[in-house]
């Protein structure tokens, strides 16, 4: 039972008040994209042992989506940030680097 803090409304609550929304920072491919791009967008997901970026929604609270950086092994939370960005904030990336030197995720770090 993770404890998460919603960056939109500031409420700290148990996992059951949120809904997990899968991998963060997917790039949408629409009409005109080739099969590989579209397949990657629809189906291919990161499944790292360690640092991961994922989407959550504060479903039984303010209703807003946000994003979380989390260690999938220890369940340590590195930080949460709004959904309206295509990359994790640099400060958060620095925090992760301090705790998990040498980390990488997708094309980040």
């Amino acid at each position, binding site marked *: *039972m*993770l*404890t998460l803090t919603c960056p939109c409304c500031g409420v700290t609550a*148990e*996992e059951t008040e949120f809904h997990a*929304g899968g991998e963060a920072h997917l790039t*949408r*491919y*629409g*009409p*005109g*994209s080739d*099969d590989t791009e*579209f397949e990657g967008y*629809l189906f291919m997901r990161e499944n790292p042992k360690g640092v991961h970026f994922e*989407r959550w*929604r504060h*479903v039984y609270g303010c*209703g*807003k*989506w946000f994003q979380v950086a989390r*260690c999938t092994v*220890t*369940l*340590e*939370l590195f930080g949460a940030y709004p*959904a*309206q960005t295509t990359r994790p904030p640099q400060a958060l990336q620095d925090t992760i680097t301090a*705790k998990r030197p040498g980390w990488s995720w997708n094309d980040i770090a």
Partner: protein
Amino acid sequence: MSTRLATGGRLINTDAPMRFTFNGKVMKGYAGDTLASALLANDQMLVGRSFKYHRPRGIVASGVEEPNALVNLGVEGKFEPNQRATTTELFDGLLATSQNHWPSLEFDVGALNARLSRFMPAGFYYKMFIHPRPLWKHVYEPFIRQAAGLGQAPKGRDADSYEHFYAFCDVLVVGAGIAGLMAAKSAADAGARVLSLEQAPQGGGRAPVDGGQVDGVPVDKVVDQLVSELTEMPNVTLRLRTMGAGVYDHGYVLGYERLTDHAPDQPGPRHRLWRIKAGQVITATGAIERPLSFAGNDVPGVMLASAVRDYIVNYGVSPGDRVAVVTNNDDAYRTAIAVKKAGLDVPVILDARVLPEDSPLMAEARAAGIRVMMGHGVASVMGGKRVTGIGVCAQAGEGAVLEEIGCDVVAMSGGWSPVVHLWSHCGGKLQWDSDYAMFRPDVHKAPVGGDGAAFVRTAGAANGHFGLHEIVGDGHACGGLAAKATGHTPRKTDAPQGDSPSEAPLAQVWIMPQGAGKTLRAKAWLDYQNDVKVSDVQLAAQEGFESVEHAKRYTTLGMATDQGKLSNINGLAILSDALDQPIPQTGTTTFRPPYTPISMGAIAGEARGAVFQPIRRTPMHDWHEANGADWEPVGAWRRPYAYVRQGESVHDAVMRETRNTRENLGLLDASTLGKLLVKGPDAGRFLDMLYTNMMSTLKPGKCRYGLMCGENGFLIDDGVVARIDEDTWLCHTTTGGADSIHQHMEEWLQTEWWDWQVYVANLTEQYAQVAVVGPNARAALEALGGMDVSRDALGFMEWADGTLGGFDARVYRISFSGELSYEVAVRASQGQAFWDALMAVGDSLGVMPYGTEALHILRAEKGFIMIGDETDGTVIPQDLGLHWALSKKKDDYLGKRAHVRSHMADPDRWKLVGLETLDGSTLPDGAYAVADGTNANGQRNVQGRVTSSYHSPNLGKGIAMGLVHHGPDRMGEVIEFPGTDGKTYQARIVSPVFYDAAGEKQDV
């Protein structure tokens, strides 16, 4: 025999005798007894039969680790199987029966299995699976069915109530033995909010039985003192009969409190599930003694040495008159001394070790006149349903019997294993301690919380400390550290000084004797409940099941209701030996919550019956209820399936409502349909992305039917969209889609097109909506009076605001039935009054309410699709002939890219058609149409399936829709649908529109 002693028993109250019944026999015990101690006091050592071989089973332990003494408790609504007698507190009138035998505990037919045991080796069940079908049917299946299951499933509804309870604390201490009490006290002294849980009815754990002193005070007095101090402290909650069941992510812990199991007449819930958020968790869960693996170690009367001592000291019960002790460590000598002090006989202590000199405990035993045989062990156990004696052998040899010694109890000790379960639940790692032959928590690899810091600590025997001095010191220090980690300052106090005799080191003994041959190993039990022997684990290793997780499943070692609390370490030591690798390399199986079984009732808590899922009610719900509604659950809603009249069947009602709606006037409560208001400068652009067709070009005042696909191209919802004004649209969704489509819209707006200016509001429950349907629909609204609802003023697929009969109303000219139809939305608070007004004016127009089944038939007669019937998450609009709803003008919409994927564009996809049986009967819903030939599995090939099927009273025959291979190109062809009723239905492929194909009736 086992019996009640004249004196002793620190937990029982001999002034409070109680009567209970075991297998119909009335027995006597005392308040404070467990069922197990009371059974032993009545000379009832035999308590059950094992799972596989139906071997006689006696009481082995005195606590939660007990594998054998499982009984059925209570009757009817209070019946519960598999209850451990060792943790069941006795109460007056308790009813228990033994399990897993037929016809009786003493004489059991299934015990024949035991004689066949050499034909039932490890992996027996798996090995059977490869045998051919006839052998299964006639030999194995009857055998497995007869043997399967432990205890009986309750038949009655659970008469008790249960509840959940949320709790928050700085420091949670699991276990109120001496270590846990010390930890709780030092954390509480630092000012932390402390919650202390103890599974037993009293604190103290083993310490009061094992003795010793703390700071010069006898340890049982120290326990009493700590319990009373903690009870008084305002920042401490101490709960007895409450087990720490599981430790989960980020400091979440489940506690399981048994409130009335010991006092069934007490009012209130039976069990309470504690849902705890703790800053720090201390596992002070003690340790469990291990059995020794010698031939015959499962004969009733062979017990854990610590349990023998517990029964004597705690309950004043002698498990037997002559107790032989067999051990590889000093602790069992305490049992020998306790037995002797109780005035009973200890004929021998067999100690597998060879030591240079006696330890203090050994010296004390010898001084009490007990014969001690060093370097010896048990070669055999005499007796069937009760021990009558043992054969003694040299531990170093192969089991040649040197001497036979009469006894009725064998007290065995193979050392102790810390209870590391809760430490491990959430990822705490273990390390192997070869001095004590045990896994202990690796305190440098503790579970961490969201901040990356350790949140679980461990203290006392659970942490691998066994001397009283180390245990109290560890508990005291751990409590202070946990308090500090939650922001409190521990008081500077001296660590408590424990005093107990020093002990000689144990010897690792995994098989007795060391050179035990095949015959002995096949009689040396590891798992008593599941009948797993040393030989089984060795065979598993030999057959290649080298991973401990594989060996566990192959042999079923540790898979019984006790989850291997006694057997796991012994089993993996045998496995390691067979694989010739060190024990830590073999590792342990995964420790999973709950620590011991918890009731399903506690998990459900209050969520049963009416509160399991609260029902959503439309404003007209009570009217439906009062007017014969046969309810259909639709999501969390209840919708009337039909309104059944006196003397009418549900089917009759559906037929009547369907006909009446076509002939006169029908009213449908459509309030459950989703109503999402989408507003803003970019709303049109947004809806163009969500719907497959164009919504931005819709004119205010107009309605349009729309389809929604997910990004993978499959249909997810449909409904009518009305444009309210320049920047406002109202989107109707399916009943089930109201919430999910709202969330779908929010997700895209928040996470992809967050710069678009659009706001979505879910207005579903703000309006009551009534479909007024049938040839008399206009007359009904005109009778109400108010706004102009004529064809000229309000055409088909238009909407208007106005008043009807004095009600503020929004009227949509839309039709899901093919009839003249209006859907009228009024404020939810006026829904019932509006419905009443419609029923009143409709009286002379032949009004009848109709339910969801009539709705379905009416739409099917028209060939309208239903999300969830014609779609199942794998269907695209093209499959349903809805190409017209796919905009070609738009560059992009959700699903557009997916529709050109090769499988989606495949001409061989099954397509929607109508189906009409040749004999007018109704096709079975979901039936498959068979094609020529068979597939690779020898099954008939298929070429289509029924998606909706009804009897149409208007057409007087069965009508259906289905998806059929090349269906639209095969009009008139007859295909076959074998039903599950043995009949094969012949159906002709026809247009899905069965009624008013020109669509004239809805546009009048």
